[in-house]
């Protein structure tokens, strides 16, 4: 039978995103994709999906989704509230950073995203939507992607690839992902030689603030102006997510996933890939500063970030209900070790 999540309230800006539409930038096609790819990958891991599968990116205030399927497993990662509304039951808060198994007729109400710009929701098996140019990412500015490349709207039916939740217990991340803190690391360039010494020094020492003009395309940063050596204009060249371009007014713009493929303003630096999820989570008013690193150091930081993410995914474990015994975990443990240390939570400890 057909299985859907039906949008009964659209929220403010929920879009389908995967890890981006690569391979078509030569045609001017922006990459788009999840602003916080770590959240998307972990949400997918929690429901047993390939890590790059498309999910919903929720900004500001999430949608309300009705389960029109026998069952579905979902997981959200990020700072958002969720409520389950089930017939004949009081509304029940659902925690992010773990999976939940929902049933026919349940309404999942995704609330406010608070503490970062976005959160991600994954469903087990993913959505049965047709990719556009090899990707399910939504580029809203040009209406490219599934659902016409637009945010969710009331009445949308998101087709599910599975018509039931997978077997096995719900699982959780032991703790929310750690995005790190401190300055965003950048590699200077590609046009650092288009700026004065003073501008480079200011850029690496001042505190900037995300201005009110902040969206999936980029963040305008308020702070000390950066002076060019000569003109701010260069022959248009390629951009990446994380490029920091500085137009003639000297106010930097940190480009995010919906950035244009090419641009004609000098770029002072580029945020390293390990720190892009942090950059994607920034909101208007957030403060930020920058620290220069070499490409080689950036590569090492990315590798260690990937190891951390792999570690979090390995640590995913069956959910242990607060104050109770998780029978499924209990049985599983009994099969292996013959006894269980319930006081210590039942897992992880070697037993004699």
């Amino acid at each position, binding site marked *: 039978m057909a299985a859907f999540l039906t949008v009964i309230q659209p929220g403010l800006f929920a879009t389908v995103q995967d890890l981006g539409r*690569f*391979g*078509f*930038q*030569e*045609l*001017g*096609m*922006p990459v788009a994709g999840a602003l916080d790819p770590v959240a998307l990958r972990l949400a997918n891991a929690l429901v047993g999906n390939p890590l790059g599968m498309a999910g919903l990116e929720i900004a500001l205030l999430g949608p309300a989704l009705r389960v029109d399927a026998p069952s579905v497993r979902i997981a959200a990662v990020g700072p958002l509230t969720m409520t389950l509304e089930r017939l004949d039951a009081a509304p029940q808060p659902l925690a992010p950073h773990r999976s939940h198994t929902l049933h026919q007729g349940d309404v999942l109400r995704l609330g406010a995203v608070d503490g970062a710009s976005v959160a991600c929701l994954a469903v087990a098996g993913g959505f049965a939507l047709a990719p*556009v*140019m090899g990707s399910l990412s939504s580029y809203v*500015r*040009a*209406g*490219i992607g599934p659902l016409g490349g637009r945010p969710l709207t009331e009445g949308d039916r998101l087709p599910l690839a599975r018509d039931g939740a997978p077997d096995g217990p719900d699982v959780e991340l032991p703790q929310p992902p750690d995005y790190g803190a401190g300055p965003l690391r*950048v*590699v*200077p*360039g*590609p*046009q650092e030689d288009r700026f004065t010494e003073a501008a480079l020094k200011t850029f690496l020492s001042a505190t900037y603030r995300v201005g009110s003009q902040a969206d999936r395309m980029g963040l305008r940063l308020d702070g000390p102006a950066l002076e060019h050596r000569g003109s701010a204009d260069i*022959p*248009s*060249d*390629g*951009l*990446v997510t*994380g*490029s920091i371009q500085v137009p003639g007014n000297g106010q930097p713009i940190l480009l995010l996933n919906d950035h*244009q*493929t*090419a*641009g004609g303003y000098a*770029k002072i630096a*580029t*945020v*390293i*890939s390990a720190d892009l999820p942090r950059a994607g989570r920034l909101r208007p008013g957030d403060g930020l500063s920058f620290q220069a690193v070499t*490409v*080689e150091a*950036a*590569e090492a930081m*990315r*590798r260690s970030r*990937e190891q951390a993410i792999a570690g979090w995914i390995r640590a995913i474990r069956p959910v242990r209900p607060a104050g109770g015994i998780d029978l499924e975990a209990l049985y599983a443990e009994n099969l292996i070790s013959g006894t269980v240390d319930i006081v210590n939570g039942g897992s992880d400890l070697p037993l004699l």
Partner: protein
Amino acid sequence: MEVRFTSSGDTAFNVEFGEAIDRATNARVMALHARLKAAPPPGLVETVPTFRSLLVVYDPVATSRREMQAAVETVLADSDTAPGDGRLWRLPVCYDPDLGADLAELADALGLTMERVAALHGSAEYFVYMLGFMPGFGYMGDLPVELDRPRRSEPRVRVPAGSVAVAGRLTTVYPWESPGGWHLIGRCPVPLYDGGRPDPVLLAAGDRVRFEAVDRATFDGIAEAVGTGCFDPASLRAA
């Protein structure tokens, strides 16, 4: 000129062939683009050609800057031959002041008649240096020097889709309604981006374009055929 490598973080670098916007420099960009596309080194994500540089996007988990730059240098040392000529398109354009809101003003500023502006624009064969700004937006050159005029000082908030426009020594057709600062001199009835086509983007970097003046009735006829799905853009390919 010596090739220069510049960093765009740890996921991309630029291979710069110079500072100038000219055919010879761009041919070297396109040659490297074509060769890397034909035989991508492991870890290459994609390459993005622009006027005078190629952005090489790679996966820093699968490879490294050192390895990827070495692979690119090998390809560069091997040969620098320009790829063959791109496709030639004949794009209809109606140079009508109702469809090109800046035609009269631009003609005035250049000291030419509107007819002369249209004739000059239609006289050249243009080369698609690169796409960017938005999906399918081609930067084409070189515009006859008589039409060289800086961008509008006040960009428009809304440029209609299909607008044929000029700025500096470049010309374009806006694939989408969007903001824009180029001078609008006419309209092309064939969409440069159409999500319903198997290849939604009509032009590719390296293609060549000639503009063919059509009258308003012909423009309306093509626009109607496009609207009803009866227009095959392949018919615009010159033999």
